């Protein structure tokens, strides 16, 4: 039997228009803990999905215990002993712990076909005890915390005799003590000969438990190293190490008065004492990892979610923002990360979408919309933003990502906003359209608007912002001027690896 449980050779995965993985080769030894590191969007998720059969690779070969395999779905990978535990657990809260553990593999009483609860409960209990967890397996899973639920998932994998468990950010929603228990149990899995692929942004965890560490960036494998060769600096350097390829045009605006002042904003479990100022003619970039609380902050400031405490001032006046309606009334605009789910009404056309926020200004006699005025304004905006195809009656579902984003921008231009929050404005749009979006942001700033850009792409944040605020676990953990910051410094603040004292000026 070979030393390797799984060998991947030259794996490529292309999606229409983008290459997600290029020529990735990787070996997983039996019973090793193999950490996978990379920035957001580096290709880690795609990689896992190919291992588990959610996606199929376009090129390359996968060997499992020496035999060539190809998974068409997750059942096929599971039958060979590969399973993944995701950030979002797949526990069914309304079933008991034991039922969860045996889901899809229920034991039956021979001859009767009825479920053998006694045996299942007993085996579930034993599996959990092996993990050092002593809970009542006949209670519903919803009665236990995330940490326990994760153990239930691991127990489910143990019962099924898996050989490889992939854990995607397993500690992102665990408390400190729960993390310790998890890491201890990962070692137990290793002792049983089960391999673990461990994906985490928390480099100290990676360095604490991994046997080997692989770094991927932009869909390519950068290198695999033994833990003894690795340190935090080195991993970060390998994760970031790219040049600023894209062109980032700069705006010419002068910093003016404070447009938005946020003080001591709190939202239980999500945002912790957030304070910052945003000036007219300024772009602030919010950097951080997925789940650091940046989108939550944007939603809270915009009134989409309730806050527990905090003060928001707009152009020097303290305001109460209880809903997006209030925020828009005070001149704010929020371009959501999820364009299709939260930005556009996909089944409706460009006219309807681009005038949704500013419909009132087209009204005669208070209530009746002047359709001619609407069409004239939409025509004008479509020319200005170069929306293609320039057909006002076009359903937005049929537009490309870049043009959909432009329609969302049109919607907010129509509302005459002064403070713009862009959440991942260039996600999923091609390079040419990205530059157009940057130019638009610059135009807004030149015209005196204040802009916040949330982006998980470091070059983008560094390229278009005047100042960069870094968030980690719902807190602002760093503030940098774009002129003197390095990607490494931002990543350090974002991963919380090195204690970065942040004080608001």
């Amino acid at each position, binding site marked *: 039997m070979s030393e390797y449980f799984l060998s991947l050779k030259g794996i490529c995965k292309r999606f229409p228009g983008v290459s997600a993985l290029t020529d990735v080769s990787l070996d997983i030894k039996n019973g090793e803990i193999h950490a996978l590191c990379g920035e957001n969007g580096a290709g880690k998720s795609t990689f896992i999905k190919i291992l588990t059969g959610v996606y199929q690779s376009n090129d390359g070969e996968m060997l499992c215990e020496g035999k060539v395999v190809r998974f068409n779905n997750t059942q096929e990978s599971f039958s060979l002993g590969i399973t993944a535990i995701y950030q979002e657990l797949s526990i069914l809260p309304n079933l008991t712990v034991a039922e969860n553990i045996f889901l899809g593999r229920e034991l039956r009483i021979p001859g009767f076909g009825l479920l053998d609860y006694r045996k299942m409960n007993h085996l579930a209990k034993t599996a959990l005890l092996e993990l050092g967890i002593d809970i009542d397996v006949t209670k519903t899973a919803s009665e236990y915390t995330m940490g326990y639920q994760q153990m239930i998932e691991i127990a489910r994998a143990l019962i099924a005799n898996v050989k490889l468990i992939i854990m995607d950010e397993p500690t992102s929603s665990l408390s400190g003590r729960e993390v310790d228990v998890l890491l201890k149990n990962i070692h137990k899995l290793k002792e049983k000969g089960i391999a673990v692929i461990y994906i985490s942004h928390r480099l100290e965890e990676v360095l604490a438990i991994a046997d080997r560490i692989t770094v991927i960036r932009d869909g390519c494998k950068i290198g695999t190293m033994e833990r003894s060769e690795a340190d935090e600096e080195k991993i970060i350097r390998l994760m970031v190490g790219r040049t600023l390829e894209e062109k980032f045009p700069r705006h010419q605006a002068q910093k003016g008065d404070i447009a938005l002042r946020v003080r001591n904003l709190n939202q239980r479990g999500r945002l912790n004492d957030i304070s910052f100022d945003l000036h007219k003619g300024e772009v602030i970039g919010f950097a951080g990892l997925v789940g650091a609380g940046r989108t939550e902050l944007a939603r809270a400031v915009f009134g989409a979610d309730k806050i527990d405490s905090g003060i928001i001032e707009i152009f020097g006046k303290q305001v109460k923002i209880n809903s*997006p309606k209030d925020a828009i009334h005070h001149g704010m605009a929020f371009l959501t990360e999820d364009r299709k*789910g939260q930005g556009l*009404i996909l089944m*409706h056309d460009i006219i*309807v979408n681009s005038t*949704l926020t500013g419909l009132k200004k087209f009204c005669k006699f208070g209530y009746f919309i002047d359709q001619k005025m609407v069409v004239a304004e939409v025509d004008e905006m479509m020319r200005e933003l170069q929306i293609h195809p320039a057909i006002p009656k076009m359903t937005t579902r*049929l537009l490309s990502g870049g043009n959909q984003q432009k329609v969302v921008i049109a919607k907010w231009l129509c*509302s005459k906003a002064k403070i713009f929050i862009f959440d991942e404005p260039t996600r999923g749009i091609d390079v040419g359209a990205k530059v157009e979006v940057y130019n638009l942001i610059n135009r807004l700033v030149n015209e005196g608007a204040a802009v916040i850009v949330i982006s998980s792409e470091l070059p983008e944040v560094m390229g278009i912002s005047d100042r960069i605020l870094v968030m980690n676990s719902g807190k602002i953990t760093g503030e940098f001027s774009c002129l003197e910051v390095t990607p490494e410094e931002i990543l350090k603040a974002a991963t919380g690896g090195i204690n970065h004292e942040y004080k608001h000026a």
Partner: protein
Amino acid sequence: MNTSTPEVQGHGGTQKTQFRQLIKKMGSLIGLIGLSLVLTFASPYFLTMDNIMNVARQSAINSLIAIGMLLAILTAGIDLSVGSILALSTVMMGIVVVKMGMSPIIGVGVCLGIGILLGWLNGMMLTKMSLPHPFISTLGTMNVARGLALIVTAASPISNFPTSIQFLGAAFIGPIPVSFILVLVVYAAFHVFLNYTTVGRYIYAVGGNPEATRLSGISIDKVLIIVYAISGLMAALGGLVLVGRVNSAYPLAGLGYEFDAIAACIIGGASFMGGEGTVWGTLIGSMIMAVLRNGLNLLSVSAEMQTVAIGIVIILAVYIDVLRHKAAARVKA
């Protein structure tokens, strides 16, 4: 290749979309014309002035209720309480006018007022009490209103309304029934409301994508409350026409009318997913149902068989809707 063609592809897609939208708009109209042609050949009486006016009159009540229902369906909701609202609002009018002898104007006010009030309650329960789906709030109201209608009348009908109240349901101007003129006026008003007012546009937006609508600064609660209040109002107006036609208000009036109204919307091209549907489509949907019933009557098809036929038409109409959505999904992919 990729850099030069997208515009052309875009245009191609648009022509296809426009064609598809035309079919969508015309689909139910073609159905209505086809059905009428068949019936013209099948029965010599079908295409006479008398019969056409008869169909117009018979379709009026359902048309009025259906246009209120359309608003609910546009927001991806439903209003099951319209039949019961019709009953309670009309029997209350009967009590006020016939039993208490008050002026017909007050009676009509009571009737429409109760409709708006119950609809408003539906909306409040949906939004402020956060009931998970309008199915629940309106199912509750459906039972409460029906029960109250039976209680206040001691389960017996109220008759002998003054002629002024019967005007909407029974009168004719020339050969044309007033109730049908009312329908045309109401539908024209709804067309303007839905397409040329902010609230009307917001109704489509809420059904198309509630989260995007909320983040665009629109109060979804307010829109939904208005929608259900209007639906209640239209149910009461339908009741007013019914009272005029039969000169009686009775507590079991409007039983099952909610389903005829839903059917008219769906046959007329409204989508249960919300955000799609037109005023004129709904009118055609309502006419198709009336023509079908009328035609089957002329052909002496039994009432039982008619129910079967209506059921099949509903399923076919929705199946066409499903096929259309699948086609749209394919365009997306």
